């Protein structure tokens, strides 16, 4: 198990009011992403737990690209990876910020 931590300033705060969202599943080739609106300003933190060692550079590229494209300021994002491919990670992250714009379900 490898852990990674990446933090960046996004261009703006993540839109929406939802305090948190969960997307994806813990299943082989997939991942679970928890997004929480808990940080001040435009800071974005991403914590990754992955069983596949040696892909740090790709993870960094995927996450930096995500922060640049989707401006998820104020979000702490926790990724529980089960060997997902980069395209699946990107899709889940994009789904996650979109979910944060929806009305909270509780």
């Amino acid at each position, binding site marked *: 198990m490898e852990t990674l931590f990446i933090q960046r300033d996004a261009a703006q705060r993540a839109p929406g009011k939802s305090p948190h969202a969960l997307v994806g599943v813990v299943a082989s080739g997939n991942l679970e992403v928890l997004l929480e609106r808990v940080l001040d300003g435009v800071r974005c933190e991403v914590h990754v737990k992955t069983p596949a060692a040696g892909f740090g550079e790709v993870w960094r590229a995927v996450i930096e690209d995500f922060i640049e494209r989707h401006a998820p300021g104020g979000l702490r994002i926790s990724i529980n990876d089960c060997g997902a491919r980069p*395209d699946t990670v990107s899709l889940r992250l994009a789904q996650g910020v979109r979910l944060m714009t929806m009305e909270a379900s509780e």
Partner: protein
Amino acid sequence: MSEWQSQRLARQARLEAGAILAVGGGKLVAAGDATALLEAVLRPGDRVCLEGDNQKQADFLAAALVKADRARLHDLHIVQSGVTLPEHLDLFAKGIATRLDFSYSGPQSGAIARALNSGKIQLGAIHTYLELFARYFIDLTPHAALIAAVSADRAGNLYTGPNTEDTPTIVEATAFKNGIVVAQVNQVVDRVPRVDIPGDRVDFVIAAPKPFFVEPLFTRDPAQITDTQILIAMLALKGIYAEYGVQRLNHGIGFGTAAIELLLPTFGEALGLKGKVATHWALNPHPTLIPAIESGWVQQIHCFGSEVGMDEYLRARPDIFFTGNDGSLRSNRAFCQTAGLYACDMFIGSTLQIDLAGNSSTVTPTRIPGFGGAPNMGSDAHGRRHASAAWLKAGREASDGPAAMTRGRKLVVQLLETFGEGMTPTFVEELASVEFAKKMRLEVVPVMIYGDDVTHVVTEEGIANLLLCRTPAEREQAIRGVAGFTAVGRARDRAQVAKLRARGIIRRPEDLGINPLDANRQLLAARSVKDLVQWSGGLYAPPGKFRNW
């Protein structure tokens, strides 16, 4: 005697040698005499088509030929589209055959590569289907065709059933050029349901102990379709089908196009595309198209072959499919390939590898699966002269010349997930087939679709419209710009890619207003094979390996 009759005389001698084995002076030969018949009618060095189509296989005759005495039969030149059975390779291992011209190898792609490497096979060329069929009439005319049909009558009239496929083409080239035609059939009947091959083109008929083998090649289980494939399908539908108004098309084999088929009645319906796109098809009967057909999207489909389990469904939908007077599907690979080349405005399919110029290939370092028909569909037909809106729009996008003389363009769309099995990148600096060609000393690098025919590359990251690129450097950056997090994608010139996006050459999901939350299996019209059976009203009977309920 004049020298002009030598082939006819040779044919007569072969027929007489075979007639000794025929029952009661007719065309029927006992299954146990199959090898003896082939030894009697074939000659060393003959060009032989041992019918191996994309799906239907003359497997009994293949096994009979493998048992032939090498002292009598050797150095045969095998000329057939599909080399897919182990027996086909056994012929070369035994030295009965030495030369090969083919199109597609599918499950034998590894064995063919090994046999080429060891020198057991002298390879002529790997062809596309239409190209090999064309050579049957010019310089690869078979001396003998060993074919497969469902049933025969005593006069040799053949009923091929729904998998007519290559048979009419093979028989035409052989029977009308002094060749010998031997058919294996599942049964001999008093009267065939319909005549697919007239009896006077068939010399010998053998009732095989088992029905010929048919491979279910075109069944994709909706349960295996991923969210990424659904996202790519949404991009293609909104960014290409809708933009160009593509009505006449061919879909390649694979989960990418299966996802598109299953999104027509849902996402396509929501976009208001019903009746405006995807109405006329050159296509095998894909089970995943059933929901779109049942929802009224499709007007007409012509088929290369059939698909296992689809027979009753096809029989019940003659308004959509081509059927005979007996009610069952009539397929024809040569005609359908021609239709795909000349009468379709788009080919869309998946590939395993694509390079920076857009050339694609399915060759890996150890496998040579051949081409099949994709290059015929996936190429611009320079002999085309009729217009359509989609064809003209594509042509105009590609041209800066005078509008009056601008010819249209076939849309050739490649679908790729940026990573394949085991995190293998699908975008590469150099295709594996380049190294393969060097190793095998092939004169031509095997390329499935050449980059200059490709008009769009679609991945989960977006659509690259290569028609709008004006220089090789722009094409390269457009391709890198949708290559995701592969090494090729990460090496993009970000400023150039941003410019291409501003010009609409690269379009992201957000540029097309696609909500990533919709890229979800709930969007599929059928989520399992069982759903497909239900859509078909119980007419689709999937083969056992797809029944998991």
